[in-house]
């Protein structure tokens, strides 16, 4: 099992591993199909639509949307499929993206801007520049990645409503 953890300075987060913290109507769950570049982005779009209805700044909504979309594209580009779940709490949004993919053998390397293992098809769609994971990190406050080769990758991130730009 490969693991990566990063958090912005000054951010305290306790992840008890449970996902049941969101009140009714404050979560989004969506299945993502691997290789489906037409449907890709539908989950991130749903998350953005939910956040836009809440008293959250447009800049924060934009950060959540970008990070969710990048993570969703990763599932479409690399995995057979996966699930995206977003939970809104009073002071943060937590997004969990769990895929059934090949796993990431070296996460530190995958975090380097420009490093990519994307196929030609993925590149033709305008992706695969090796900027996905670095851009997720740029937009979130806490990022946790766990990956097992041959099984899949789980990306979890938090964005706090009163932190960041």
């Amino acid at each position, binding site marked *: 099992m490969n693991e990566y953890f990063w958090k*912005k*300075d000054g951010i305290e987060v306790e992840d008890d591993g449970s996902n049941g913290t969101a009140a009714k109507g404050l979560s989004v769950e969506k299945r993502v199909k691997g290789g489906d*570049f*037409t449907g*890709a*982005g539908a989950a*991130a*779009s749903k998350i*953005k639509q939910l956040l836009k209805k809440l008293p959250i700044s*447009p*800049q924060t909504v*934009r950060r959540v*949307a*970008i990070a969710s*979309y*990048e993570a969703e*594209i990763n599932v479409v580009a690399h995995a057979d499929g996966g699930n995206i779940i977003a939970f809104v709490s009073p002071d943060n949004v937590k997004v969990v993206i769990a895929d059934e993919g090949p796993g990431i053998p070296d996460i530190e390397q995958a975090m380097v801007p420009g490093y990519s293992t994307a196929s030609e098809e993925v590149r033709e*769609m*305008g*992706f*695969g*520049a*090796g*900027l*996905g994971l670095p*851009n997720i990190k*740029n*937009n979130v406050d806490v990022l946790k990645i766990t990956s097992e080769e041959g099984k899949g990758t789980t990306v979890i991130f938090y964005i706090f409503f009163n932190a*960041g*730009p």
Partner: protein
Amino acid sequence: MAATIKDIAAMLKAETLVDHNIDREVGCVIASDLVSDMLVCCDAGAFLITGLANIQVVRAAEMIDLIGVVFVRNKEPATEVIEYAEEMELPLLSTDYTMYEACGLVYDIGLRPGDFSTRED
């Protein structure tokens, strides 16, 4: 005086594919064929010049709050792309000019690039 999407359409002799919100003022402009690049732009309200005409351009536009898109070299997006842009009320233009020419012409009417500086750790 700030330029609107309508002004850009006139400058680029562009065909308007989706005409919602074309009177909106353009804050800044980005140009890329890579969605990955577009997503790094820090400014909401940017206008995009691109040669990429698939559905993911409209998805990316939705995520980063683009205010409009022009496709260069008369790229024809598929019907589903236009329909999704209609739904998002995202103005779409198509011009005969190349990427390089389109960028030059739009720069010439005073529009400047979006911010691509990454957030500090």
